[in-house]
């Protein structure tokens, strides 16, 4: 129990110490102490409030562990109540627990005892050592006092001696100081007085730099003392000299190439720098320097060019130049020029930039509009210089090869242009580096792009020329075969040849262009990337480097100038669209029809190829240095208008086939060679569409066609072009064929009217008619036409026409033999009411044999009707017409499926003729006899046709019953 109470005291004491510490640290914050003390009671109070009270009571009743632990913990607390604790232990714990608790407490007490003992010992030993130290210190202090006294005495001695020396030297020092200053002044004066002489000497030595340095150093002093007359005169004198120097310098800057003055850019830069130091205004100097550069480099270029021309003249006189043979030599020349000219220019630019920092290099705050303008001057100069350099050097390369390129669109001569362009781009990059955003890059890239475009143009033009020549050759061959009736002309084969060769050439051209584009593109990319680095804060190019966004200059350049019509896709599209135009022109179809209006083919060509495209052509060719680009040899419209309708048909088929073969193949090649053309998202390709945020590419034809005044084509446009051409050509063909057929009736009719007056008496004649006349020719022509059309379409014609052996289904039906006896019957009126009121004689037809024949027959019949209506005929002519019409009518069923329409038209011919015949009409003539005559004629004709074609197409007619033929014809 005693130990317990002692412990309690100890604890109390420690706790109080702790609290004291806290108090001192917290500087009198007494609340801290109280909080610590009151934490638990507060907590307890909180717990015992409300429900907590009952909880506690219950807990204590059941003797919960928490209560005991809490009390056990409190053994270390200050308000520990020993008695209560013991009571509690005795009350709740069993004997064993009590014993264990006792042991614990005893051990704890022992541990605490030993701890305390140790503390006491430690403190005691420290105290002992401290006492020892204090004793030693006491002894040392006693010795020190004597030493200090002697030191003080010595110091006093030193001080007194110092005073003596000082007083002795005092007067002399002031004198020396004065002397020194006087000497310095004298020296300076000496320099000043000698200044004019020195300056003159420097001027004589041409050492302007020294002169300027001296002058600049002294001028301020002279200015300061200008009230002294002698100084004033010196100043005046030296000013005069320096004015002379300035004039001399400016003269040299202004006319650096005269009188053998040294004119290297370095010296020029030196002069300019000196002038700047002399306070000459910057702007004027800049301009002067630029003009000096201009003159210098201009002369240089001119000299180079002259030299080169001389050499070339020598070469041509030696007969060496031919084709691309001299290309390597030219490349050598270009390289040499690069050394001579470009190095000089580069140096000049660097020096210039040192004197006049670029806008981009200066902080934004100091950039004024003025300096921007000056930069524009430099830009302008560089642009001219670069393009002149190009004209002299790179163009030279082209001239050597242009003939080669223009002659063959096979890309043979493209290595040299690419070489030249890459050399040129290298030059541009060097100059750009030296000039730091002086517009060199822009000018250079523009030039290069123009050249590329020109190459593309040449390629396309070459392709056009080839295609056109081939078309004309095709026309000639077909015309020859038709006139000589020698079936050496195989239309299908010819068409395929045309297509395959054109496709092949297109692909080859594309591949060749790919080489050019890639070669150049790398250079441009590198250049633009570099530009992005050099002037990154002025023109931030986006990460990819090529997909420029925002108003960056290079970005704008790239997107606005480089891209739009350089898209290879566009060139291919436009080529195909052109082809469909050209085909129409060659065939003599003079216009295309829009909804209400007609557009001439020429106009279409202009809209297909944007105005800008043609505006470029002249600049292209001048850039390339060649004379002219070969004009496309269209036949004159007079020649074209006489083109055979069969040729139109052939070309109609060609257009259809182009759409199904060449076009997809071209697209495929395009996708292969210029993959970027096909994808709209990827940047970094020359063929890419506009960059500025717009979703570029030709795919969205809506925006692209309206953008920038360029008429860009979409693939759908091209297909529409081909389709339109095809149908127009077809229409042209049927119209002309129909007209020609109709003319048959006219000429024959006239012949008969004038010749056979006494024919009425001929035996076996009906109404003076013995046989069919033009009807036979009509049928023969139709038969020939079927063969031609069939061959062109590549379909089997067996079963069509008389010689095909098919008896027309319509004719098989038991119809009235014809509208004889005038045929003004009611049923015809009814028929007319139900047929379309506005008949269509020009509707686009399907490209099938049936439709072509149908269209031709319709056009022919309609023409005959109209002619007949203006005529007045004799009875005999009428009878003749009847026989012929009936003959044709019988054959019609074998030509077309929908013979009914044609038959109705033929009936109308007879009706019209009947109306235009004398009032007595068929008086005295038996219509049935005429009909019989025609039928006999028909069967005769048929037999002869069949027998003539039997040998050639016997097996074919066996093989193809009419149903199979129908399907093949219908396709």
């Amino acid at each position, binding site marked *: 129990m005693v130990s317990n109470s002692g412990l309690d005291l100890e604890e109390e004491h420690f706790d109080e110490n702790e609290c004291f510490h806290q108090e001192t640290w917290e500087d009198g914050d007494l609340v801290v102490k109280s909080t610590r003390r009151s934490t638990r009671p507060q907590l307890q109070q909180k717990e015992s409030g409300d429900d907590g009270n009952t909880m506690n009571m219950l807990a204590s009743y059941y003797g919960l562990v928490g209560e005991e632990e809490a009390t056990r913990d409190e053994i270390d607390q200050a308000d520990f109540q020993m008695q209560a604790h013991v009571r509690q232990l005795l009350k709740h714990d069993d004997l064993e627990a009590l014993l264990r608790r006792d042991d614990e407490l005893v051990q704890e007490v022992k541990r605490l005892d030993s701890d305390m003992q140790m503390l006491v010992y430690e403190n005691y030993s420290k105290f002992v050592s401290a006492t020892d130290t204090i004793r030693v210190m006491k002894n040392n202090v006693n010795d020190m006092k004597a030493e200090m006294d002697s030191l003080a005495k010595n110091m006093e001695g030193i001080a007194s001696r110092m005073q003596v020396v000082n007083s002795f030297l005092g007067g002399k020092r002031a004198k020396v100081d004065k002397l020194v200053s006087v000497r310095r002044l004298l020296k300076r004066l000496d320099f000043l007085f000698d200044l004019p002489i020195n300056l003159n000497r420097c001027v004589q030595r041409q050492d302007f730099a020294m002169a300027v340095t001296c002058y600049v150093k002294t001028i301020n002093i002279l200015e300061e003392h200008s009230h002294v007359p002698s100084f004033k005169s010196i100043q005046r004198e030296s000013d005069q000299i320096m004015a002379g120097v300035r004039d001399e310098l400016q003269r040299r800057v202004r006319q650096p190439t005269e009188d053998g003055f040294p004119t290297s850019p370095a010296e020029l830069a030196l002069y300019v720098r000196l002038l700047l130091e002399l306070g000459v205004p910057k702007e004027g100097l800049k301009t002067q320097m630029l003009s000096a550069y201009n003159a210098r480099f201009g002369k240089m270029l001119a000299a180079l060019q002259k030299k080169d021309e001389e050499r070339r003249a020598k070469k041509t006189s030696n007969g060496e130049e031919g084709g691309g043979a001299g290309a390597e030599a030219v490349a050598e020349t270009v390289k040499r020029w690069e050394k001579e000219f470009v190095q000089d220019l580069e140096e000049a630019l660097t020096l210039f930039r040192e004197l006049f920092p670029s806008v981009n290099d200066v902080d934004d705050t100091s950039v004024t509009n003025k300096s921007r303008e000056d930069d524009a001057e430099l830009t302008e100069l560089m642009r001219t210089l670069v393009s002149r350099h190009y004209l002299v050097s790179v163009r030279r390369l082209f001239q050597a090869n242009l003939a080669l390129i223009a002659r063959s669109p096979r890309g043979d001569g493209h290595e040299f242009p690419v070489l030249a362009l890459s050399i040129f781009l290298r030059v541009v990059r060097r100059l750009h580096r030296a000039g730091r955003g002086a517009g060199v890059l822009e000018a250079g890239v523009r030039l290069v792009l123009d050249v590329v475009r020109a190459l593309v143009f040449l390629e396309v033009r070459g392709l056009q020329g080839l295609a056109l020549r081939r078309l004309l050759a095709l026309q000639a061959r077909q015309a020859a075969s038709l006139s000589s009736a020698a079936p050496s002309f195989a239309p299908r084969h010819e068409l395929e040849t045309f297509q395959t060769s054109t496709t092949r050439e297109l692909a080859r051209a594309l591949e060749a262009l790919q080489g050019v584009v890639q070669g150049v593109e790398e250079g441009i990319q590198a250049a633009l990337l570099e530009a992005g680095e050099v002037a990154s804060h002025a023109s931030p190019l986006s990460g990819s480097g090529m997909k420029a966004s925002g108003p960056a200059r290079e970005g704008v350049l790239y997107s606005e100038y480089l891209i739009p019509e350089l898209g290879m896709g566009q060139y291919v599209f436009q080529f195909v669209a052109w082809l469909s135009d050209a085909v129409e022109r060659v065939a003599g179809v*003079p*216009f295309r*029809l829009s909804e*209400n*209006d*007609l557009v*001439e083919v020429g106009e279409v060509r202009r809209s297909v190829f944007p105005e800008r495209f043609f505006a470029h052509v002249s600049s292209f060719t001048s850039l390339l240095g060649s004379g002219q680009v070969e004009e496309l040899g269209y036949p*004159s*419209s*007079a020649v*074209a*208008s006489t083109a055979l309708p069969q040729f139109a048909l052939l070309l109609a088929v060609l257009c259809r086939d182009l759409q199904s073969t060449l076009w997809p193949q071209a697209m495929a090649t395009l996708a292969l060679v210029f993959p970027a053309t096909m994808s709209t998202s990827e940047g970094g390709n020359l063929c890419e569409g506009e960059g500025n945020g717009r979703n570029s590419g030709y795919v969205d034809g809506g925006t692209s066609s309206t953008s920038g005044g360029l008429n860009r084509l979409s693939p759908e446009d091209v297909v529409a072009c081909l389709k339109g051409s095809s149908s127009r050509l077809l229409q042209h063909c049927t*119209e*002309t064929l129909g*007209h020609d057929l109709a003319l048959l009736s*006219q000429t024959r*009719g*006239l012949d008969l*009217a*004038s010749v056979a007056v006494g024919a009425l008496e001929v035996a076996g004649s009906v109404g003076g008619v013995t046989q069919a006349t033009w009807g036979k020719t009509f049928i023969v022509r139709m038969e020939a036409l079927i063969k031609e059309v069939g061959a062109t379409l590549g379909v089997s014609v067996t079963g069509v026409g008389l010689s095909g052996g098919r008896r027309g289904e319509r004719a098989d039906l038991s119809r009235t033999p014809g509208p004889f006896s005038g045929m*003004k019957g009611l049923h015809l*009126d009814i028929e*007319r*009411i139900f047929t379309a*009121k*506005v*008949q*269509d*004689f*020009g*509707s686009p037809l399907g490209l099938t044999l049936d439709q072509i024949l149908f269209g031709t027959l319709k056009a022919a019949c*309609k023409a005959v009707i*109209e*002619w007949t*209506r*203006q*005529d*007045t005929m004799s009875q005999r002519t009428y009878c003749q017409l009847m026989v012929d019409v009936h003959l044709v009518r019988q054959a019609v069923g074998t030509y077309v499926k929908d013979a009914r329409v044609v038959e109705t038209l033929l009936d109308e011919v007879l009706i019209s003729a009947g*109306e*235009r*015949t*004398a*009032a007595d*009409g068929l008086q005295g003539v038996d219509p049935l006899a005429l009909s019989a005559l025609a039928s006999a004629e028909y069967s005769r004709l048929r037999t002869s046709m069949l027998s003539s074609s039997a040998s050639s197409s016997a097996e074919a007619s066996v093989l193809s019953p009419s149903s199979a033929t129908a399907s093949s014809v219908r396709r």
Partner: protein
Amino acid sequence: MIAQVMYSGAVVYGAKNQSRCLAAVKGDHEHHRFFVGAAGLRDYPQNELLLLEYSEETNKLREASAYSHPGEIWHISPSPRDSSLCFTSSTRRGADPLCTLWRLSLPEFPHSPPSSPSKDAGDMPRSTTRHSPTQQAFTTSFLAGEGAKKGTKAQHRLIKGSRDQSMEPLITLPVDNDPNKSRGGGGRVRCVLWGPEQETNGKVLAVDGEKARLYALQGSSDAQEMSNFDLGVEEKGEVQAAAWDPHDPWKVAIAQGRGIRHLDMRMEQATGMTETEQSSGFCHRFGVKDVDFNHAKPYCFVTGGEDRLIKFWDIRRTGQGPVKRLAGHAHWVWTVKYNPCHDQLLLSAGTDNLVNLWRISSISSAPLWEPEEGPEAPDVRVLAIQDHEESVYAVDWSACDPFLFASLSYDGRVVVNAVPPSEKYKILL
């Protein structure tokens, strides 16, 4: 036989005979009157010259009078000054072709509404039925000289007191007729042109199968041939139509063969053929059908042809090809007519049974401006009139209202139509 039917906005009249020519009565600026000439070969001698009158109040087209005409009428050319004078060109079987100036006795315009609607409703427009005996009886009786007309209309008019619808031949122009030379009507006069009003007052040009002859009319009784021009038909093709340049009293354009011949009547002979279209040697493939001058814009004329196209030309620049082309027909364009007052409007008709009304503003004397359609109003086809069931050979603008026009198809159907008000206001405002 008369029918007045509202037919998709158009007024339709079915003439009895096949007819090829229609012309507005140019001298009559108060009534919408049109001559229609019948051209039935077999109908001789029943061919008639009909005078049709359209009334805006009743929206009806009625036959004002009918004149018996010898032979089939190929061309009508009313005097621009005197509404009672009119040239016709005709042929008769077994006789020489005629070109005659007639004086017609004109009926008064009726002020009371014509016959009751119920009767009109019963008469449907119809195509050619020429052999109705009753009709024949009527016409015969008329030709016998009673002046009686057939059908209810005729009786109605008799009641109104317009009894003496007769015509009196004043002048017959001489016509060469060599039947062997040309087909299709021999030497008949293809067209007669009245000279423009000023200097050529009293001048008439008749173009026949061979020549163009210029006559001076003396009074209304005699015509003196002043000069004639050989047109070289053998070489250049047949004459189809002609038009007198309203801006030049000496110039005439003749549609001949595939080209246009410009005739300067001060010259001794016919001048060279102007064959246009960029040295291809023709204006229209296959042939030119009609020519008409722009009344408001000098040197400008329009042609229609067998290539389905309408082409606009400038005489000064024919070598450069047409100023403009239009395609709106499915077959030959037989006739083209500029509106005499508003050259934005053009009529065309052809053998595809179609009549087209165009607004060609861009090359007119006063291009229209439409803010919502860009700087200039586009050239459009305003109407495509499909009321005909036969080839349309003639159209003409009314002399009284520049926005009214009539067209005639081969079956005798006359359709009167008006320019839609929206278009009208576009031009007027």
